């Protein structure tokens, strides 16, 4: 029971930050609408790509099974993880540029919680985007199996934590360098290339494939397909190895990211860089 007031306080902070960011986003309704439309557009684009792919008769000979379902699941998970990865940095950059970052720092909120709190709304938007992608995909013919939902949710949570940790490391750079979006964009591009979002990682040359195993997206997408597709493709990543790797990634990246962010803030406090942008 001793932890109950703390939990309530944390919930209150999470709600306050989510409400703040949501209110700001809803104050630009057209931008929000087009953001969501843009997010689900790939479900349509890749519908035709898959049609072409399957009309060529390549699906049977490939390892992907139902290519459209394969694509939609990959895209939905990648969209969610991308939100987890870029959400905090994006909000931080916005707050730095707008001049509200210091307003947040003088609130009685532990600074180590700031990355979590500033990521909540973007993460919820990511969940919404991924759900919309899956829903639209389903309407267009993607064939899902919903039996492994609980296990899948656990893996997604690990993936979100791992991606958020990468985002926190990037945000540490943002606090010091004031710009880190290009670094994260590069990482995001590499993730989408090497994680097997659009194609199985087996197609990547063996001498490059090791990079895939350094990207958390790879494991979440592979496990997502395994538990979410009616006819899952042949495993390129063993489930046990995937979960262990994800756990390891989360521990290492969070263990690195949170102290790094804290130290970046402390350094900026000392040098007077905090108010710059």
């Amino acid at each position, binding site marked *: 029971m001793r932890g109950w007031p703390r939990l309530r306080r944390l919930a*209150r902070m999470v709600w306050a930050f989510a409400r703040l960011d949501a209110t700001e986003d809803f104050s630009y309704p057209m931008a929000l609408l087009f953001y969501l439309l843009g997010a689900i557009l790939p479900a349509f684009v890749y519908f035709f790509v898959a049609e072409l792919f399957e009309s060529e008769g390549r699906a049977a000979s490939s390892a992907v099974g139902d290519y459209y379902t394969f694509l939609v699941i990959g895209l939905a998970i990648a969209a969610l993880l991308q939100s987890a990865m870029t959400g905090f940095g994006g909000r931080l950059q916005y707050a730095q540029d707008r001049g509200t970052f*210091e*307003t947040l720092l*003088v*609130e*009685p909120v532990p600074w180590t919680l700031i990355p979590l709190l500033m990521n909540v709304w973007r993460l919820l938007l990511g969940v919404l985007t991924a759900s919309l992608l899956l829903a639209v995909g389903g309407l267009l013919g993607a064939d899902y199996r919903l039996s492994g939902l609980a296990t899948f949710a656990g893996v997604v949570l690990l993936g979100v934590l791992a991606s958020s940790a990468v985002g926190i490391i990037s945000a540490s750079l943002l606090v*010091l*360098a004031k*710009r880190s979006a290009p670094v994260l964009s590069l990482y995001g591009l590499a993730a989408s290339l090497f994680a097997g979002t659009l194609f199985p990682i087996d197609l990547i040359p063996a001498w490059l494939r090791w990079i895939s195993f350094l990207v958390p997206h790879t494991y979440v997408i592979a496990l997502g397909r395994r538990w979410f597709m009616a006819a899952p493709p042949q495993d390129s990543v063993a489930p046990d190895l995937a979960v262990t790797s994800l756990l390891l990634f989360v521990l290492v990246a969070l263990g690195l990211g949170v102290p790094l962010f804290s130290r970046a803030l402390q350094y900026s406090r000392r*040098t007077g860089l905090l108010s710059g942008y």
Partner: protein
Amino acid sequence: MESTDLNRSTNRVWNGGLVTTPGTNHDGPAILTGTLPRWGVSADGRAADDETIVAIRGLGKVYEPTPRWMRLLVRTMIYQPVVALQDVDVDVPAGGICAVVGPNGAGKTSMFRILVGLTTPSAGTALVAGFDAHRESPRVRRLVGWMPAEDRSLFLRLNCFDNLHFHGRLHGIEQRSLRPRISQALDQVGLGGHEKVSAFGLSAGMRARLQLARALLTRPRLLILDEPTASVDPVGAHELLGLITSIVREHRMAALISSHRLEEIEALRSHVVLLDRGRVRFQGDLDELRARYDRPRIEFEFSSSSAADLAGVLLTEVGRLTRPTTRVVACDPRPGVTVGTLVTRLGATLTADLVRVAEVPLPLRDVLAKIYLSTPSAAGALQ
């Protein structure tokens, strides 16, 4: 730690408004005598009671040159060490207002940022209600209502209610009591009925009021207001300062206020800290300041311009002269020169031509300029 820091100040001598520390480099010789009372602090330097809200001791801040490796990240560089604060002592009791005055770069904002935890001190301590602003920053942030100089600190896309709601929730105010408190805070600053108005749609003056409402919402022990009236019209500024004064006194808060508007500093009738290049050049009330530095100008009006011309010749050696009109001679007397000395020099003939003799007090601006323009080593010249 706290008592050690407070004890450190027993070595300090307060000679009127000028701070001197035996054995240390300071702002030149102590040119004034007498003792300036210090709020809430007894003669031995310890906190006299638990009412001292702000206790700053030997506070220093040096911004070090940016290391070379940082050039890879960002090209906002500091090439030389910048001394923002040096050996600053300030006390503010509950119910007290302290006006921090100084030219740009004097160190006002650095001092405020240390108190709210946005900057770390290089030396000394800053205590808020007994908590160290550096080491116990989260606790201090609960006690401080901060109004930064820029209205960019507001969430401009949010309405007035939501701006305060976010702040109140993070301070742990329960939902049911938050709503009436927001209404009360907005009413207090004259923004009642503007709950649903977006901060973006407010005028600069109204944004300042909203920032003040946010600072007041949590009923803090310490209000830190960085140029609160910078964007407010004179009448609004007067009202706002009146409001701040009454709230601070009524709720026994402490307030640190910086301002460039000297008429406001005069209107506040508060304790004044003059900062100059990071050092405290004077600390006390304005009457004390005027008594020390304000040497009134003496104006002599004569019945003819020829008499004024002759007076100009006779008074040249005893003061700096100006001629506002052809029949008037204004004299800024040298140190030690009294009105009697001046009249004696004029002699009986010219005294007979005198129409009017008047003492004109220097505007506060000129008094401060005198202090700031004097180099520390030349401080004695102020006399």
